[in-house]
């Protein structure tokens, strides 16, 4: 679905590249988590996949990104945005309309969704994110988390094939963060939408993402299946990426006992492993 090949990018008027030799592949229906310290180039990569780079933010772009066969440089941003929906980190600036309903209508109207289909799409999107009761509210009366959900609803109403989320849980409490990820999971599993999510909460990524990419200083340090990446827990810790406590536990146990222990990513396997060791 998404193929990133040797991509390097330097923003205009910057000397340092924001992305350097990025290679990545996400299959159709995949769920990729991107993690890394601040300034690692995560947001730049998200923008590049959505085609905002190089169409809106200009600079030196090398390599190629294709989304469903469309080259992001050769295709127009309009064609790409029919395919890729993106929710920015700063949700506030993403919301265009003063009312929730209008915000959802905006994209639907512009992309020429048939009139008779619009009400259903709006209701469906609001129901999926769990805020059908907010439809007639004004944006300024909503909390940060609610605005976040409005932004997500306005994007999924357009039924994109790929959904890119830049730190969707940045302003959310643990419970709402989990809700957002459950929503992503259902979009991914029920509708087959390919999901790319930038996230700092590693535990959520371990639980929901099937693929993980670790970024640092514009490069991808590690990429692969979530479990494979977590084998290199020490490397991640060196970058300041905290591993889940169960992973740290299994790693330390492996070091202390000298046994070949696979890294654990969830509580159940950790429990089984510890019980197994105690016998």
């Amino acid at each position: 679905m998404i193929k990133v090949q040797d991509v390097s990018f330097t923003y205009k008027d910057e000397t340092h590249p924001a992305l350097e030799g990025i290679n990545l592949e996400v299959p159709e229906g995949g769920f990729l988590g991107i993690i890394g310290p601040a300034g690692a180039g995560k947001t730049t990569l998200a923008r590049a996949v959505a085609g905002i780079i190089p169409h809106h933010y200009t600079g030196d772009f090398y390599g190629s990104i294709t989304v469903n066969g469309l080259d992001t440089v050769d295709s127009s941003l309009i064609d790409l945005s029919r395919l890729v929906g993106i929710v920015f980190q700063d949700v506030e600036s993403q919301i265009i309309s003063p009312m929730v309903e209008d915000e959802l209508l905006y994209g639907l109207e512009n992309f020429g969704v048939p009139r008779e289909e619009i009400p259903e799409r709006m209701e469906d999107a609001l129901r999926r994110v769990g805020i059908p009761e907010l439809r007639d509210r004004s944006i300024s009366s909503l909390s940060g988390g609610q605005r976040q959900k409005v932004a997500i609803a306005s994007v999924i109403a357009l039924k994109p094939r790929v959904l890119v989320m830049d730190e969707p849980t940045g302003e959310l409490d643990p419970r709402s963060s989990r809700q957002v990820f459950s929503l992503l999971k259902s979009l991914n599993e029920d509708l087959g939408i390919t999901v790319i999510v930038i996230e700092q909460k590693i535990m959520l990524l371990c639980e929901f993402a099937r693929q993980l990419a670790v970024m640092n200083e514009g490069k991808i340090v590690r990429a692969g299946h979530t479990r494979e990446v977590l084998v290199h827990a020490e490397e991640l810790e060196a970058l300041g990426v905290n591993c889940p406590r169960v992973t740290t536990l299994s790693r330390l146990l492996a070091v202390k006992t000298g046994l070949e222990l696979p890294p654990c990513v969830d509580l159940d396997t950790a429990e089984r492993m510890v019980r197994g060791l105690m016998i």
Partner: protein
Amino acid sequence: MNNLFQYVPGNSLIHRLNPVSKLLLTVVICIAAFITDHIAVLLALLALDVLIGVTAGIAGRTWSILRGLLKIAAFLFLLQVLLIRGGTPVFWIITDLGLLNAAKVVLRLTVVCLPLALVLAVTRISDLTNALVQVLHVPYRYAFTLATAIRFIPQFLEEMSGIMEAQTARGVAFDQARGLKKFSMILPLCAPLLISSVRRTDQTAVAAEVRGFALRTRASAYKRYPFTRVDNAAVVFCAALLAAAILI
């Protein structure tokens, strides 16, 4: 102040008018206020403004806008009274002509500003822009600019109070300053406000772009804005108002 321009939901006759009729009524009131030279007509127009506010069920809002305008009006009145030299003196350097003209200027200001603020209270901004594009054939990018400008007012205020809070936390005593002193304290904050706003508008532009801004045409809007009988009546009323202002 924060919600002075915000839409107040409602289902009054005024709310249900076509946004274009509301704008027309506003513009006609403004023109009438500038054409007429009679205090009585200006007072009648002011009464009309208030009546519109009351029938729309936003008497409270009308009153708070009036109160806000009163401060500016008082300042203008004083300035006019002290500067106009014609006519016969009534008291000290104040003349009867000065009083009359000052009253007219102040009334005109109030009569013009009030409906402009009220129209935003009874119309959703999206309806306003959609109707402008659909009925008046205004190019969408201009309508969008207008809508975004209005949409960002509460956000700017929110951001400004955020910056002020941050300054207060670092020991700036905004609450103890008044008038010019307070103004001079707020002025330097405009730089961070401007910077964050520009950054924000750029993001908003991208957000609009990726959701098909460029594809939008006159026919895009989901809602339709037909002219009803009430709208026709409003147009006739506007014509009558204009004629009255010219003839009286």
